[in-house]
């Protein structure tokens, strides 16, 4: 190992000496002296390079990270809250849409469904009856009144008819109750004059402000009922 190579190796990295360098040191006192000098210098350099570190630096670093990640956490929380709110909002809309949207295409379908749904509550032989006065009281909402009760009126009350308020009248019929619905004509369902299914049939009449729908079973003279309604009803506007 020549002197230059030895010096280069010692100066470049005093701490890691390979076998050749060690051998050179052991065989040559001058080289040993040089190596010791550089070791001493290197110690000095280490001391000089190790500048003092601010005492609280580690704590500052931890503090700053904690604050930063707290902020991050907070904004994440906010995002999560916003997402939950959106989901709730969409669910609300969906439920609203499902509950109040029209599942029936026209008035007739809805009227039949309504009658079928409530059929078990009304019996043709029921003894209850509603007076003309209380009927007309209820009719006031639709700005109309009846001159007579058209037959034996078993039941008269407001019903939700496809999302709008309607008056549901149940009369005693030939074999089963006859249902008459009075509802505002600003209905977004398609108007249908005549409709029927296997058991029931019905007619709709369109007045200025209201539709009157008559639903009864196939034995019932629906046409007659309709005429009776037509004759007896008086619209106040």
């Amino acid at each position, binding site marked *: 190992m020549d002197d230059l190579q030895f010096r280069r190796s010692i100066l470049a990295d005093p701490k890691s000496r390979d076998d050749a360098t060690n051998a050179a040191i052991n065989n040559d006192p001058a080289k040993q002296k040089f190596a010791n000098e*550089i070791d001493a*210098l290197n110690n000095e*350099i280490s001391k000089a390079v*190790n500048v003092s570190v601010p005492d609280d630096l580690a704590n500052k670093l931890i503090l700053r990270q904690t604050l930063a990640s707290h902020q991050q956490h907070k904004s994440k929380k906010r995002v999560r809250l916003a997402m939950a709110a959106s989901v709730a909002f969409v669910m609300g809309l969906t439920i609203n849409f499902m509950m109040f949207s029209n599942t029936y295409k026209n008035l007739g379908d809805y009227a039949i469904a309504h009658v079928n749904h409530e059929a078990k509550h009304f019996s043709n032989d029921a003894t209850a009856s509603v007076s003309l006065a209380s009927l007309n009281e209820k009719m006031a909402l639709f700005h109309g009144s009846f001159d007579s009760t058209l037959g034996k009126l078993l039941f008269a009350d407001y019903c939700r008819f496809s999302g709008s308020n309607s008056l549901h009248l149940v009369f005693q019929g030939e074999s089963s109750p006859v249902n008459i619905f009075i509802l505002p004509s600003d209905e977004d369902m398609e108007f249908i004059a005549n409709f029927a299914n296997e058991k029931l049939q019905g007619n709709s009449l369109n007045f200025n402000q209201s539709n009157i729908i008559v639903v009864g079973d196939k034995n019932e003279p629906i046409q007659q009922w309709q005429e009776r309604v037509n004759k007896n009803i008086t619209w106040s506007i």
Partner: protein
Amino acid sequence: MATKQVRYEALVKALHADLYRYGYWLCHDKHIAEDLVQETFLRAWRALDSLKDEKAAKSWLITILRRENARRFERKRFEMSEYEEATITDVMATSSEQDIENHWLRDKIAKLPEEYREPLVLQVIGGFSGEEIASMLSLNKNTVMTRLFRARNQLKEAVDNEPTLRGLQNG
């Protein structure tokens, strides 16, 4: 979350001093060095999951710090003359004889050309091998060894040539 926090705190405690010293020798300013270390650890926190090998943590952090330092110059390009560097390092508090000697040597280290000083600091503070320094600085190993040799050689010459001044300061 908790384990990440624990890892982070361990990392800070183990390496902040070396990182601060390295930063100090890069920019010669205590406050900038502190800012650099803060930025570095903040970035390290965000990317902590990508650090798989804890042994590589030191060189990983040093790489982040070097990039932060380079970014500092992209943001705001201000000139630092050799003269300023020397005066800034002069501010070090000196209390004992040992410190005075260190101070003198510190001055010499600060006056080394940047490309010699950086590998030297990495080797002395970081304890990195020639290969590791070469990969961190994107140089080849022979270049690094040559620079390390020149850095120490210059310091040795400085020590040999200025015994009177040192004596004066020590006295």
